[in-house]
């Protein structure tokens, strides 16, 4: 049974069918990529999964549990973390603090124990700090640990956002255009991290991506969308050769 299943998912904004009856399955430990021209509904699917929008129809199942209607702040706890197309970091905080926010669901302290700074709070802070430092090391962000995020270069901020999502220790990671705004070298690096995340950390990756070189390099399965409808699904090569996909990108 697949880790993540989407069945007949649809969302209509007035007359616009942003996503119109899409079904797919993501296997545990794989990289699944959604491609498609602008406005195909890729990010909308992400927003449905992370519960920012409510679907008009269909179901989303994660790890055997129906998550179609759960509140947005419960998604992380189930093991789904995400990044955003246009980086959504906490700009006034340091890299370290941003990643500590990623640990939110794993730190069990409450306001009462925090006010009195009980030993349990210190223990939880140190434990989380240790896990965050592992991620900082994994992503080679040591040099930026204490820098305010708002002052860092774009490529680094992208990595910090990835690190914050990893700090939540997800089972599935949603990456919304991980290569957007990056140069060729940085894109190659991202490709390596994505493979490492799958192979070394065992995290399933669901991503939206435009750069076909990156898509071809890391994806186990690729799904092509156009106008909210599924065009093709298969390996990167199969999807790229599909006549419907070629006509969607290039016209007839």
């Amino acid at each position, binding site marked *: 049974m697949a880790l993540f299943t989407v069945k007949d998912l649809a969302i209509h904004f007035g007359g616009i069918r942003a996503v119109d009856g899409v079904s797919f399955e993501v296997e545990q430990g794989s990289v699944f990529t959604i491609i498609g021209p602008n406005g195909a509904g890729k990010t909308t699917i992400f927003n449905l999964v992370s519960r920012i929008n409510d679907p008009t129809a269909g179901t989303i199942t994660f790890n055997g549990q129906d998550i179609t209607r759960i509140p947005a702040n419960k998604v992380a706890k189930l093991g789904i973390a995400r990044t955003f197309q246009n980086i959504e*970091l906490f700009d006034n905080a340091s890299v370290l603090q941003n990643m500590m926010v990623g640990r939110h669901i794993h730190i069990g302290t409450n306001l009462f124990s925090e006010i009195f700074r009980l030993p349990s709070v210190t223990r939880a802070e140190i434990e989380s700090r240790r896990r965050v430092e592992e991620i900082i090391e994994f992503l080679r962000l040591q040099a930026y640990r204490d820098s305010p995020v708002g002052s860092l270069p774009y490529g680094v901020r992208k990595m910090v956002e990835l690190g914050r999502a990893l700090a939540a220790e997800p089972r599935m990671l949603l990456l919304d255009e991980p290569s957007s705004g990056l140069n060729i070298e940085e894109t190659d690096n991202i490709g390596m991290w994505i493979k490492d995340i799958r192979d070394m950390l065992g995290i399933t990756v669901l991503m939206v991506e435009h750069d076909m070189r990156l898509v071809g390099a890391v994806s186990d399965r690729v799904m092509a969308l156009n106008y909210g409808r599924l065009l093709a699904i298969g390996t990167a090569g199969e999807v790229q050769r599909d006549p419907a996909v070629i006509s969607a990108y290039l016209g007839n």
Partner: protein
Amino acid sequence: MHFPMKTSYRDDLHLFKDRSSVVLYLFLFAFLIALPFVTGDYVQSQVTFVFINGMVAMGMMLLVGHTGQISLGHAAFFAVGAYTSTVLEIRGIPFLPAFAAAGALSAIIGLIIGLPALRLKGIYLAMATLAFSFIVEEVIVRWSSVTKGNRGMTVPDASIFGFKVSSVTHVYYLSGVVFWLVVLVIINILRSRTGRALGALRDSDVAAESMGINLAMFKTAAFAISAAITGLAGALYAHKLAYISPEQFGIMLSVEFLMIIIVGGLGSLHGAVFGSIFFIVLPQIIVTVKAYLPQKVAELPVLDSATFGVLVILFVLFEPRGLNGYWVRFKAYLSLYPFYRRGMFRRSRIGSADLIKH
């Protein structure tokens, strides 16, 4: 420049950054404890007002500076705290339970005001809290069977385990102890999970929510904590003045609280305290300087408020990080001496990484 050597993650969690700041705070505590022995009632009263305003300012800083929710209704929480403790103490309830009740009732009302805040932002939230402030003022005026309406109430001396807090010095020590406890509480909140969540939802609420932060819970919690601290300060204020009436808690007071934290520097607890000191000291300076002005000028009725207003505008214009910005630069100057150069930190964002810490 001086970097403390840290060898474990625990080292990063200490309340004080390094030994020199421990020494600095010890001197400060010694000074504050010794103050009543070397000064008269007037100075002690002024410092007491700094403590009280400082508490409110820190409570507001948590809400406005750290959580990013503006409030023009804090005079109302202040009033709720002042009236709750006074009404209870008049009925013979000792200070400590009355004080706790003042904080608790303010927190509950803060929680209720926090609910509309879930759907409102910026200027709309300011309007909603402002309206709330009017409601509270009106309730205090009309509910005269309990609050004595516009006649006001005389506040009895606080009684703690039978000890009467009667003199200026007593109130000074009481406010000082509560002030430092509040400082500790707020620092503890800010440097743990809750504090980080508040900072996160200020900077990006979609990202905060995707990290599992319950926006509704933390936004209302920020209102409740902020209101509780303001309520406690209100209770102390009542005891300090020994007489309370509705007009003391008008809209101007809310505006003043907001100005304190803006002048102090949004997002910094130091700023909240600096702002409070500034607002107590500045009018004194204006009065002192006035004595040296030509009589024609000194007698102008708008002189005080105009000078005050202009100074505040200049502050916001030239140092958006407020008094705390000057403080951070002054510290950098000392630690880098003699290598500090003007404009050294113009481009970097020194200090802002500490926003979420404290």
